[in-house]
């Protein structure tokens, strides 16, 4: 073997060793630049994941016993809420209103907790906001226009989430058993919030806008379908800015739970429920 060949072989060896080290040890691990290019002509997908919890633990319907700030034990037998008018906010401040966005999230229905938004312009989203409830215009629209999640008919999805023409939808429904509720009320508490302002008679407006920012951008791309993972703390219904005691609430023997816009507003439920939501993390997973 002549000297030049020898050097060539050695440098090839070094080159191989070096490229190996670089490919293995380079400390930042990233997506390929090509996968991060924004294609303005193709829209993408983004999923909102509503992960219901109580404090730091997963919400287990009917099974687990939780405690509110007064130390009163309770279970959660139903936890449902409406999310509507979703707005996605890009890092540059521009927003995208998701058209016709009305969703009913139920703890009892896993599929309802994943809200998949399609046809979303590609970009980096750092914020999401939505209405907790069903907006006044939609609530007041003819029932034939309220389909899917908003169908209040006997076999409709919203059958247990609707009061009446004037009171409208139940925006948030929380109920369950509690030892703090006397036996003559079956030891069962009900905290139902609604009220869009009323149709024929004026009611209080209990609609609230929830605005959240994400800890890292959700990067919607041709090959990336992010999930914004939200934690929704049902415990905040009783333990928000207003602390609610079931014992004092149910001490009046005629009291049978919160079932009207005015009662919900008086108890401070709308503001408590506005504070239930937080973004825990974002997944920028490949499609």
């Amino acid at each position, binding site marked *: 073997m002549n000297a030049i060949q020898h050097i060539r072989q050695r440098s090839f060896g070094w080159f191989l060793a070096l490229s190996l080290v670089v490919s*293995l040890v380079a400390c930042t691990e*990233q997506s*390929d630049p090509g996968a991060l290019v924004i294609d303005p002509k193709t829209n993408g997908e983004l999923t909102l994941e509503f992960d219901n919890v109580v404090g730091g*633990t997963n919400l287990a319907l009917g099974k687990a016993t939780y405690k509110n700030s007064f130390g009163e034990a309770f279970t959660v037998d139903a936890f449902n809420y409406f999310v509507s008018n979703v707005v996605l906010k890009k890092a540059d401040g521009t927003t995208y209103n998701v058209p016709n966005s009305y969703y009913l999230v139920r703890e009892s229905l896993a599929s309802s*907790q994943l809200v998949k938004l399609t046809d979303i312009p590609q970009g980096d989203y750092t914020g999401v906001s939505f209405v907790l409830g069903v907006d006044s215009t939609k609530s007041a629209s003819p029932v034939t226009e309220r389909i899917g999640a908003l169908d209040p008919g006997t076999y409709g999805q919203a059958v247990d989430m609707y009061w009446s023409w004037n009171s409208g939808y139940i925006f948030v429904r929380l109920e369950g058993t509690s030892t703090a509720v006397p036996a003559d009320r079956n030891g069962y508490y009900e905290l139902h919030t609604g009220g869009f302002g009323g149709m024929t008679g004026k009611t209080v407006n209990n609609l609230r806008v929830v605005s959240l920012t994400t800890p890292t951008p959700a990067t919607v791309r041709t090959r990336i379908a992010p999930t914004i993972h939200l934690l929704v703390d049902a415990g905040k219904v009783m333990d928000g800015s207003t602390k609610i005691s079931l014992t004092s609430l149910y001490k009046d023997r005629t009291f049978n739970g919160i079932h009207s816009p005015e009662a919900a507003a008086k108890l401070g439920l709308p503001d408590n429920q506005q504070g239930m939501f937080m973004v825990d993390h974002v*997944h920028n*997973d*490949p499609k």
Partner: protein
Amino acid sequence: MKRLLFFALLLLSIPGWACDVCGCSGTNFYLGVLPQFQKHFVGFRYRTQRYDTFMSRHHIDQADSRESFQAIDLWVRFYPLRRVQVLAIAPYQFHQQTQGNVVRRLQGLGDATVLVNYKLIDRSRIRDSAHVVKHALLVGGGAKLATGAHRYSETDLSDVANPNFQPGTGATDLVLNGIYTLRVNRWGMNVDANARITGTNAEGYHFGNRVNGSLIGFYVKQWGATAVMPSVGLYAEYARKDHKYGVLIQETGGYLAAATLGLDAYRGNWVVGVNAQLPVQQRISDGLVQAHSRLAIHLSRMF
């Protein structure tokens, strides 16, 4: 000294419905102390690995799961030329995932690996097993083939919809390795390093590149035709994160460092051995996956 330890390691884990948490994944590959005799051999090895996957640390609404990976390997080594060694290993995999009361199982032929090593250094002076001075350096490479099945359904709930749970990775990988053995009388040491430059499979999935290595000390005790060899050492592996269609998958990759304990016995042309890896430090899949001890038992016949 006759011995072979040849680990094809599988580091895996499981998905939930929203995010695919995966371990280092794919067939990882570990060469232990190799018998330096110029002999062919054929053998079987049984190996087992277990993992806990903590989906709930990440997704409060998801159940944790346990995964068990077992395999039976057929391995062969032969010398077509004096300084050229060919190693081949073909695994048959048994995978199981337990999530609450739900148990999912999968079995099948895994990914075979073929390596060709060249003896750069091979010096020895052997009288008997108590009077040996030798050192050997082998370097080489080869391929991990895509012989194992790699298909799953994202919609069929009885499937574990995770690339890591498949018997094969679906891709052909380039493998590079080096082995150095030093033996002075009854004592010896073995150093090896192994790297895998991974390919991309038909689903656009690219398992991260990975390396592993070990440093093992051993001792040989002989009675006539019978010898035993206890060994102790350190093992480490590191995997880069996976990509799909060029998109990084955050909950993949990671490292593991383990203490290794082994005991091999030789009689005539037969070798039987057991080897354990006890994790001492690890961070797999962003900490969502926890590896338990690994065990391997092998039986080989030399020719």
